[in-house]
């Protein structure tokens, strides 16, 4: 653009144009606000968690595109507001505040790590806003302002450990609980330790190990697992390692030749996306527990994968445009956005309280093959649990699943302090 020095004659005209422009600018946001409903997307697009979270941002955008293609909600289009909290936990709270008070979003879809969720929770509760959290987590929390579309411990961790204890899982008797050092692994392992004790496993048969975020040297840990497994009966490893540390962990596991038939590793935060770029041939047979795998065969999933493949191609999403992968948190995100849309339609409003009331009992045909239902009271989805084994092509093959959907139990009964706690948010309980 060329900038011309205005001649004196034009100054008057220019001034009035500027005044008009300012007036127009003042009006436009209001006019736009009436036309669109803003939706916040709060996922790390850089830092150690970007490996897992970036694709969830794209999933939200895809679901929003779908809803807009059908005419939007309440006669308005949805408008995504994407921010990058950069795997920085305090920044999550800051960005959440910005989304709620500055952008005035109707709902926020975001967070992966529990530490990020804990960091934004007060923000959402104070301003009575809505957060949809799409990842499996440790429970021990139930907020009126959050809908948890991922699994609670009894929908992932406990069934996985039960499977490893069964004959088919290798009748494991000794346990290595391995995790990244933050709230989710620590709490999950606390629950698992209590659960294992209830099953008669001695303390000496449990080894707990933690590494910092972004840890990349897993030599010692693997050596420790090898030593531990040679000292007693069949050993299994439960991994709650999160983020990009999983790549060096699985590389080391493969290079050191720790085979699944000797010491199986079951992971709770490793899906198709995290194993991209890892040579999975030495890892065949290691396990993951989720409520969805890309390899599950049913028409809804076929369509979901097809939609994602097409979306990734048109948007040129790095990695996915050549090799489209779907995973459990993506499915949970997808269900979350659509259920929220259904609830808004039912409530005929985006007011958080009305939407919260309308969310109870919502159903959605999930790619995992069940009709996913939002519990009437506890803000969690009913979910089927699958155990998958890693294949040479980086996909998972389902070797075990629950008979039907499992109801979430966010306040795990295996933790003594939780006795008598009701599985419903306090505010809602008080109203009824």
């Amino acid at each position, binding site marked *: 653009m060329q900038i011309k020095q205005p001649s004196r004659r034009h100054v008057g005209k220019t001034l009035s144009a500027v005044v008009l422009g300012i007036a127009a600018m003042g009006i436009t946001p209001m006019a736009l606000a009436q036309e669109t409903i803003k939706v916040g997307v709060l996922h790390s697009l850089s830092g150690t968690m970007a490996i897992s979270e970036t694709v969830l941002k794209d999933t939200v955008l895809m679901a929003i595109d779908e809803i807009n293609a059908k005419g939007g909600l309440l006669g308005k289009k949805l408008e995504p507001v994407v921010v990058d909290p950069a795997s920085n936990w305090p920044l999550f709270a800051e960005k959440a505040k910005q989304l709620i008070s500055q952008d005035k979003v109707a709902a926020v879809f975001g967070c992966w790590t529990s530490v990020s969720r804990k960091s934004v929770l007060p923000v959402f509760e104070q301003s009575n806003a809505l957060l949809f959290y799409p990842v499996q987590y440790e429970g021990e929390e139930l907020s009126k302002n959050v809908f948890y579309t991922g699994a609670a411990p009894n929908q992932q961790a406990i069934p996985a450990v039960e499977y490893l204890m069964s004959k088919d899982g290798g009748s494991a008797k000794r346990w290595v609980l391995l995790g990244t050092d933050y709230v989710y692994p620590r709490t999950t392992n606390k629950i698992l330790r209590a659960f294992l004790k209830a099953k008669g496993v001695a303390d000496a048969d449990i080894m707990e190990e933690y590494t910092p975020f972004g840890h990349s040297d897993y030599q*010692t840990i693997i050596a420790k697992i090898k030593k531990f497994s040679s000292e007693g009966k069949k050993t299994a490893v439960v991994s709650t390692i999160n983020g990009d540390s999983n790549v060096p962990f699985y590389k080391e596991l493969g*290079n050191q030749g720790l085979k699944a038939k000797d010491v*199986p590793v079951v992971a709770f935060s490793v899906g198709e996306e995290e194993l991209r770029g890892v040579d999975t041939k030495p890892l065949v047979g290691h396990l993951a527990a989720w409520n969805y795998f890309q390899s599950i065969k049913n028409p809804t999933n076929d369509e979901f994968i097809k939609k994602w493949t097409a979306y990734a191609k048109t948007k040129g999403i*790095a990695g996915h445009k050549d090799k489209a992968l779907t995973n459990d948190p993506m499915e949970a995100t997808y269900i979350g956005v659509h259920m929220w849309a259904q609830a808004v339609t039912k409530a005929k409003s985006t007011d958080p309280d009305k939407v919260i009331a309308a969310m109870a009992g919502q159903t959605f045909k999930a790619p995992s093959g069940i009709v996913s239902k939002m519990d009437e009271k506890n803000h969690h989805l009913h979910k089927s649990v699958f155990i998958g084994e890693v294949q040479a092509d980086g996909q998972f093959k389902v070797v075990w699943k629950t008979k039907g959907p499992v109801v979430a139990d966010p306040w795990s009964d295996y933790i003594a302090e939780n006795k008598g706690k009701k599985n419903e948010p306090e505010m809602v309980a008080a109203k009824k």
Partner: protein
Amino acid sequence: MSFLKGTFGCLLLALAGWACALTPEQALRIAEGESDDRIAALNAAAATRDAALVPYLQALLADEVKLAGGKALIVRGDDVVEAATGAKATLPDDAEDVVNNNRMRQALEGALAAFNLSSPDREVRAKAIADMKDSVDEGLADLLDKAASAETDLGLKAQLELLKATALISSPDKAKRIAAATLLAGSADPATGALLAAKLDEEADAEVKAAIRRSIDTVQARLAWGERLGVLFTGISLGSILLLVALGLAITYGLMGVINMAHGELMMIGAYATYVVQNLFREYLPAAFDWYVIAAIPLSFFTAALVGAVLERTVIRWLYGRPLETLLATWGISLILMQLVRTIFGAQNVGVENPSWLSGGLQVLPNLTLPYNRLAIMAFAALVLIGVTLLINKTRLGLFVRGVTQNRRMAACMGVNTARVDTYAFSLGAGIAGLAGCALSQVGNVGPDLGQGYIVDSFMVVVLGGVGQLAGAVYAGLGLGVLNKLLEGWQGAVLAKIMVLVFIVVFIQKRPQGIFAMKGRSAEA
């Protein structure tokens, strides 16, 4: 138990004059239903030692078997045959994959291995013995006995004897159990340790228990050696990485005195150069993909060196002798470089694959595997170290660098172009950082903030070793590596890191000049 039933059932059938070859019904039972029933059916079929089973087992292990209309079909591409009869068949649309979990695969491998024990190929026999380890039981003792007596290779014969002992440790005969437990003391396999520990709990007889306990002690003592060597290896491996990341800094900070906060980003540039070379190879030279790392080494050196030269010429040279300003300026540069890479390559990590010759590991002891990528980095670090030492001590350029860093004015008086030497020295340090980045791409993640994780480590090594000394960096790098790994084995990764930092703080308090102090007049300069 179900296995025994199956075996007996088949034996009875055999006695009654039935042939126990693979029938379509059997093939189906091996492929369908609960794992318990499938394994029973498998063992029944395997007990006949009928070689007709082999191709079916191979197909099952290769995931080529599908179920349709109450039949097991082997599907290889468009070629579909019935599993038992080998007759041509068509694949219905509703055909289901046969899913083998770990337990099933182990049973299948074991059954297949039993056939391979008599293979003429030594490699096949060795693999068979390894595969059988996990699924061996008393029913196979006779077979193993036969195989052991027919075995000509002494190493394999010993392994077969151990395998037989593994089978006999659950024998109902007490004498056999004791003999087996004693024999197993000769094993150095971690799996034997686990097996013996499991048997110790099940065993009721005191005499056998004592024998098992003795064997456990012997095996554990042998394993302990592997563990000790393992700690040493991981320590040296970490040390070699620390040395590589610190070596460049030993030149830019140690010799030249530039507090270069962008050192980590120069590594990151080297790692990204490796990534670019990898992509070029994948695109244009897929046949030679395995060798991309070799091509990436010089490229990562020159890319980082070039960036280093530009930095030196444009920013750093104006700040010599002003350490605080240098620190701030280079820190700013590090942010700019990171953001630049984010803009070009994206904020997410990029995938750098290990070439096949850097995957896997060398098994030295049954419980000690040395990964090839770590071995390669050790060798690489040693080569870089030798190269840098020769360059600094034996070449004309090295002489100039030493001369200029020790006494700039005197060197200038002698006709040395000090400005040019500065540029060369700084780009050399930057280039070595690039080499470190290339090495790091093989063990860790490559992302824009790769360098952030190593900048503290590299300063730690240089300061601990003694500023201005290459030898100091070597001792400090290896020492910190081994110390870190010892502490990690004892207290876990999080605490180990803290303890190492505390150690360094205390050490520097006591000996501010580091392990090696500069001596003589040059120390004052």
